[in-house]
């Protein structure tokens, strides 16, 4: 698989993301935000974490207008798969490629810790190696991860099985981490081709670092 990893001014997870996909045996390339096309040989576009444009105005609000994002939009409209991690998730919601928005955490803190997540829907290209109800241990690190969507939007997400992950305890009971609507940690679009999550699977690849559950998540794209 060929993986394109985007880099904006302020991106800081591109090399961890590259390491993760190369560890899984894929070819990767890092694409600068001023580029205006996604190669035809690309199987997955990843928008990694960081602080694009210093999170000025709102997290992701300026990055979404970069030339590469126009290309990502076209790529996704043609059915291409896109994964946004943390700031990548914020960019995708700002771009309107995923529903809802990510607000400041309710406790106003930057939250950085390992966090259990419950898999809500695994019937998609991302989480197909996981089982519904399975609990994963993945680090989170964000200040603006408080997912908001209005009631109608939430009902749609639920009806279409677009909710991917919820913050939970070790047993899988939802917990309040940042104020997200019903503890949502990740969603996908209706077509299940565009995925966004606040947690960082690329930081959970080896047991010596506390968890290797990230491998199982990122392996989903293999098939």
């Amino acid at each position, binding site marked *: 698989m060929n993986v394109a990893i985007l880099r904006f001014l302020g991106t800081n997870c591109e090399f961890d993301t590259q390491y993760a996909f190369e560890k899984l045996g894929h070819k990767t390339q890092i694409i600068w935000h001023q580029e205006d096309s996604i190669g035809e040989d690309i199987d997955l576009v990843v928008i990694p974490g960081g602080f694009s444009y210093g999170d000025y*105005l*709102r997290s992701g*609000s*300026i990055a979404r*207008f970069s030339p590469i994002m126009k290309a990502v939009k076209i790529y996704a409209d043609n059915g291409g798969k896109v994964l946004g991690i943390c700031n990548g998730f914020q960019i995708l*919601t*700002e771009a309107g490629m995923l529903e*809802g*928005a990510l*607000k*400041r*955490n*309710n*406790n*106003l803190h930057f939250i950085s810790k390992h966090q259990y997540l419950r898999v809500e829907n695994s019937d998609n290209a991302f989480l197909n190696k996981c089982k519904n109800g399975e609990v994963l241990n993945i680090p989170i690190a964000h200040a603006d991860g*408080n997912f*908001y*969507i209005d009631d109608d939007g939430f009902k749609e997400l639920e009806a279409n099985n677009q909710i991917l992950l919820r913050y939970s305890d070790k047993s899988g009971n939802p917990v309040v981490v940042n*104020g997200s609507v019903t503890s949502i940690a990740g969603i996908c679009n209706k077509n299940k081709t565009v995925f966004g999550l606040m947690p960082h699977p690329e930081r959970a690849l080896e047991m010596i670092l506390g968890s290797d559950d990230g491998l199982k998540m990122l392996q989903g794209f293999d098939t």
Partner: protein
Amino acid sequence: MRAVVNVFLKEGVLDPQGKASHHALDSLGFEGVSDVRIGKQIIINLDTSDRDQAQKEVEQMCETLLANTVIEDYTIEIA
């Protein structure tokens, strides 16, 4: 012309910064505060002297970039 744009979280969308400041005001002994909302103010200087045109342009700026209308409302004053 000069446009003053105020961007706030929509009514019904919890404003964590407003809430924290409200608590702080309460604990400092300021009584009778029923709500605190925190937003941002954006001041834009425009070349045009046409009021309607300025209003239209700034509205577009808000819809495109300055506000995220999923969670935020905005007001525009042209002066």
